[in-house]
């Protein structure tokens, strides 16, 4: 199925996408209403996910997070999320930065790019496979494909105790 591509985010939608309702302390949160009204495009739409993949390399995410396995920064593949696996939390991490070295990309990307990148990063570390996925790289593969729920292949979800600082799921 060929999905709709949205090249131009309308300014009102873009400003609505800025509204991230976060739990106290910046853990987990709820995406803005407009995200649900659009049909959760950034989590599912293959075009948005591949734009996110492109942004991942363009903005040098791999210099700290590697190919998703982590290096200086945390790994995405182990399914362990310091700030919860919700997409709003990932978008907030990119937009506002996090302590211990994650810079804020608020002034480096537009808000829809931040959402695209967040959708892609969520896909890398997903425990359950998504229907949409970006295309694979031409060069050597170093980890399972994005649509294979890599975290569930590589790691067991339980019985790891939840991070005491992590808030409840939205």
């Amino acid at each position: 199925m060929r999905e709709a591509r949205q090249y131009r985010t309308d300014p009102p939608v873009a400003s609505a996408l800025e509204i991230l309702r976060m739990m106290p302390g910046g853990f987990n949160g709820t995406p803005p209403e407009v995200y649900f009204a659009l049909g959760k495009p950034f989590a599912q739409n293959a075009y948005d996910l591949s734009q996110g993949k492109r942004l991942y390399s363009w903005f040098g995410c791999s210099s700290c997070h590697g190919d998703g396995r982590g290096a200086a920064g945390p790994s995405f593949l182990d399914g362990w999320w310091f700030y919860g696996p919700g997409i709003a939390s990932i978008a907030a991490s990119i937009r506002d930065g996090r302590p211990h070295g994650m810079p804020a990309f608020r002034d480096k990307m537009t808000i829809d790019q931040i959402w695209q990148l967040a959708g892609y990063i969520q896909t890398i570390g997903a425990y359950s496979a998504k229907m949409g996925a970006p295309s694979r790289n031409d060069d050597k593969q170093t980890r399972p494909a994005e649509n294979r729920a890599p975290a569930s292949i590589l790691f067991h979800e339980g019985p790891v105790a939840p991070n005491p600082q992590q808030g409840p799921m939205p």
Partner: protein
Amino acid sequence: MQSVLNAQAEPALHLKYLIVGTVVLCAIIWIMVMIVLAWSLLRAYRSPGEAAPETERRMGRVVLSAAAATVFVITGLTIASFYATGSLGRPESAPVTIKVRAQQWWWQFIYDEPDPAKAFQTANELHIPVGTDIRLELEAADVIHSFWVPSLTGKRDLIPGRRNVLILRADRPGIYRGQCAEFCGLQHSHMALFVIAEDNASFDRWAADQRSEARTPSDGEAVAGKAVFMAKPCAACHSIRGTEASGTTGPDLTHIASRQTIAAGLLDNTRGALAAWIADPQTLKPGNNMPMVPLSSNELRQITAYMDSLR
């Protein structure tokens, strides 16, 4: 303006002779066939129902000679085509090497020098000295593109992960329009380039200008525009040498106002077109990689003034 028949350099001339020769030859053959057809129809119309026994043998001779002529013509055209296209990529040592990187949907031209301080890059406008062999190293960043300046030479593909070489030479000064010749996505038709061939003195002057760092704006509006450019996402993708903007994914804007067009030949480089492009690139060229950055009308005017000052 951009035509295979307007050949201005040797390889393009060879290709022009090849195509004109093929068309003329095929036209002659077609006319001959039509004459024979008309003649035989007329003859059959005048004397219906007769088939002379000795025409059988004569027909055999005619078919044999037609088949021989076909083989001869096709062989001749094949050899001519080998000669004409074989001259395109002679791997000679050329005095000037320029790296061409094709991206969806614009051309990046990198003038590398042994001294990295002298290297510079430009977008969609390839300046070359007249009468010199230029070695173009062709690369692609995303999908397969094809470099084609019909007045100067034949086309050559740019393939991700591979480096192709094309020798380009212009014997007369002028502006030659080129075009991506391999379908590379939504905006394939908006991926034009200009080859500007000029004499050595003006080329050296141009290169010296390009090598210099961006001018510091003096006008108040442009100064404010520079601050907006650095604070907004613009600086993450574009670089302007001499400032902190050092992004590598978009075209280098160090001397953008010196170019004739923006967005790979889509718009003339005027202040109004710049403003329209910055305000909403996705409506002008849907699918390109420049996002629509939210700007107030004041910020838009300031950034446009800054772009206009980057001569």
